């Protein structure tokens, strides 16, 4: 087992092991942005399967405590902690980040701004290699003596700092090193994204001709790079507390455990926008194409994003309302938290205004995009309850919080990814996906998703705390009604997992040429990636394009066709 799992993370390369050199340099050591995007995409998807498997194991334990989980075995208390911790860590750092930012960013930025590759291709390759290493270290942490780290994805000390509490001396350090490596990888990636979008645009592409998804990935990268520093500092301090015997977070020796929480959340809250923005951008692209309308308020959207980015640095302590912070401080953070809901709401209104009066085509990508907005709204609205410090003293660390962030993260990491993946699949692989299968997969994911997390809101409001592995030990939480809801959530999750097979089957048959060729521009879209072959050749275009207008000129009055590609002269 110990050897097979790391190999899994590299599964994208498995088939190429025994073939000749050129294949190695094409698939493994490539500096081509499209290949690196695919490496990130498939590594991220493999990690999603691992993270999903963990969720399966611990949800089974919650619904049927003590059961011998098929395919896993009995989930012990420490297993449970390690599974929950690493599920969260993986889904955020090894799925949402690599897929939404690294994979889509790498694939789309050069193609959408009209250049042949990233500005620093070798840095790009290095970024993926470090990322892959980080995934391997994380998975290895499960197989070291003591097992995987179980101190929650937020890694608060003293649990994370002292092995006499966590009992996972090695696992904690592996976890920390893996996270630090992952940050390094994204730092390198982010430098590339911003520089490429700023410096390598096609002739004629002005700053407001850049497609919104590129902007979103750029802003997300800037947010990431300006928030991650303090956490890297914190990680170094935590690592030294674990292994060198310093006491940065130990109050007995003059340190301060709350300090970690500040360093973590100063990064942690901007991080949620880091993953949110790319998904928002993907959604915007898809909506314009399938509503055949110009994006409503492009510039407002952009400025709103900047404002959100800045505000997102001022809200972090809303995660610490019960950590003993000064109530006057709590008030300030309540106000900033409520303020930041405004730009997010505004962006949702922009979507609605974009759709208004359009000729909407409910293709699979469009369904995902619409679902993204609808489901994310629930996540955003429940965030407001949590941001009010008075309410949060009750809600904190209950399943209400858990349901809140799953209603934000699931739309982002899963719905957003499926939206982007199904939309750009024809470009990436040159084939159309089967639309019927796509819709079956869509409904088979969305309906169970709500049946998983709505019960968890109710449970949270009823006082069910997070991070408890067996509620039978808590009489007031072990009632039949509450247990029934846990079972409902778990069964819905099983249903959702099964429907993912439809997706993989659909990918497989579409890719195996059972579907029709996509051609260059199957959706009749305007942006530059649709002006080259599908899949694009090395170097993207035989001759780089020139840009004459913004990306969303749909249904232009007086034009025969209802779209007007960016590279077509007037």
């Amino acid at each position, binding site marked *: 087992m110990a050897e097979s799992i790391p190999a899994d993370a590299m599964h994208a390369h498995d088939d190429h092991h025994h073939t000749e050199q050129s294949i190695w340099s094409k698939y493994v050591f490539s500096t081509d942005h499209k290949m690196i995007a695919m490496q990130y995409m498939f590594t991220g998807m493999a990690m999603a399967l691992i993270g999903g498997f963990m969720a399966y194991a611990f949800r089974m334990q919650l619904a049927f405590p003590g059961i011998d989980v098929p395919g896993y075995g009995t989930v012990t208390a420490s297993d449970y902690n390690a599974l929950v911790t690493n599920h969260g860590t993986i889904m955020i750092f090894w799925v949402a980040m690599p897929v939404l930012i690294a994979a889509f960013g790498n694939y789309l930025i050069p193609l959408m701004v009209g250049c042949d590759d990233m500005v620093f291709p070798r840095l790009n390759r290095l970024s993926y290699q470090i990322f892959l290493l980080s995934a391997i270290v994380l998975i290895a942490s499960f197989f070291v003596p003591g097992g995987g780290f179980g101190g929650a994805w937020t890694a608060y000390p003293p649990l994370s700092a002292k092995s006499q509490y966590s009992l996972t001396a090695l696992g904690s350090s592996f976890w920390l090193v893996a996270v630090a490596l992952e940050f390094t990888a994204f730092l390198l990636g982010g430098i590339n994204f911003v520089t490429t979008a700023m410096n390598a645009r096609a002739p004629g592409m002005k700053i407001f001709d850049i497609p919104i998804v590129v902007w979103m990935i750029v802003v997300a990268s800037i947010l990431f790079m300006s928030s991650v520093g303090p956490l890297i500092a914190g990680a170094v301090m935590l690592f030294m507390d674990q292994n060198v015997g310093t006491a940065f977070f130990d109050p007995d020796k003059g340190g301060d455990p709350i300090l970690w929480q500040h360093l973590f959340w100063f990064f942690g809250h901007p991080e949620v926008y880091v993953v949110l923005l790319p998904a928002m951008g993907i959604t915007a692209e898809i909506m314009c194409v399938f509503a055949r309308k110009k994006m409503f308020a492009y510039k407002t959207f952009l400025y709103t994003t900047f404002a959100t980015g800045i505000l997102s640095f001022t809200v972090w302590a809303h995660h610490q309302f019960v950590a003993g912070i000064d109530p006057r401080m709590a008030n300030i953070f309540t106000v900033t938290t409520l303020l930041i809901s405004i730009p997010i709401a505004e962006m949702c209104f922009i979507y609605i205004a974009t759709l208004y009066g359009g000729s909407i085509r409910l293709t699979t990508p469009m369904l995902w995009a619409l679902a993204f907005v609808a489901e994310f709204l629930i996540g955003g609205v429940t965030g407001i309850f949590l941001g009010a410090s008075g309410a949060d003293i009750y809600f904190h660390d209950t399943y209400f919080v858990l349901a809140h962030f799953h209603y934000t993260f699931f739309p982002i990491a899963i719905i957003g990814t499926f939206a982007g993946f199904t939309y750009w699949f024809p470009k990436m692989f040159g084939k159309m996906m089967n639309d019927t299968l796509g819709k079956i997969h869509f409904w088979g994911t969305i309906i169970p998703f709500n049946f998983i997390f709505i019960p968890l809101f109710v449970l949270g409001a009823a006082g069910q705390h997070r991070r408890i592995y067996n509620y039978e030990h808590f009489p007031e939480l072990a009632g039949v009604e509450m247990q029934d809801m846990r079972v409902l959530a778990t069964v819905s999750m099983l249903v959702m997992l099964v429907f993912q097979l439809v997706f993989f089957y659909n990918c497989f048959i579409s890719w195996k040429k059972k579907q029709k060729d996509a051609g260059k521009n199957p959706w009749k879209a305007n942006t530059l990636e649709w002006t080259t072959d599908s899949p694009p050749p090395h170097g993207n275009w035989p001759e780089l394009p020139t*840009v004459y207008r913004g990306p969303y000129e749909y249904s232009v009055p007086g034009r025969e066709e209802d779209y007007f590609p960016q590279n077509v002269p007037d």
Partner: protein
Amino acid sequence: MTSRSTASLRVISDPRPVLPSAVLGMLIFVVAEMMMFAGLMSAYTIVRAGALGWPPPGQPRLPVEATAFNTAVLLASAAFLFFANRAYTRNRDLAKRPLFTAMALGAFFVVFQGYEWVMLIRQGLTLTSSIHGSFFFLIVGMHGLHAVAGLTVLGRAGLKLSKGLLAPSTFAAAQVFWYFVVGLWPVLYFMVYL
């Protein structure tokens, strides 16, 4: 291969980037680094403000004067780098001497800091002797690592320069990093030593 069927004769001028890519990339990196040091310094400030006495009793005094001298050495290194850049824009060969002087001064700084560490450790200030020692070695050590990295970057630029291969943007990026290393130090000195 297909070519652009919609090719047009209209010429659109290729806008020159405001900053060369190497410089922009380095600047972004430096911003991330600054945030990291900001995190360290705010952690340090918070712990220091909450402590009963600083430095904690029984811990040696930091060598304030000697380090002030060393700070001056580091600043001088930045000045020589500035001269190197001026020379480089006129006659590349003239840039060698100031560049190597800048590196020598930077190396002196690192060695001198190391010597200081040895003395302090002898006097009982270690990474684990107190929270004061932990922060001192962490912050100064982090800066030292950056200084070593900066010297490497300058060294590579110097190597290219002597081969006549140094591109202006590479040199500019190296300078950005070294100025960051130098510019950061007085702030750290002020907050940690004084």
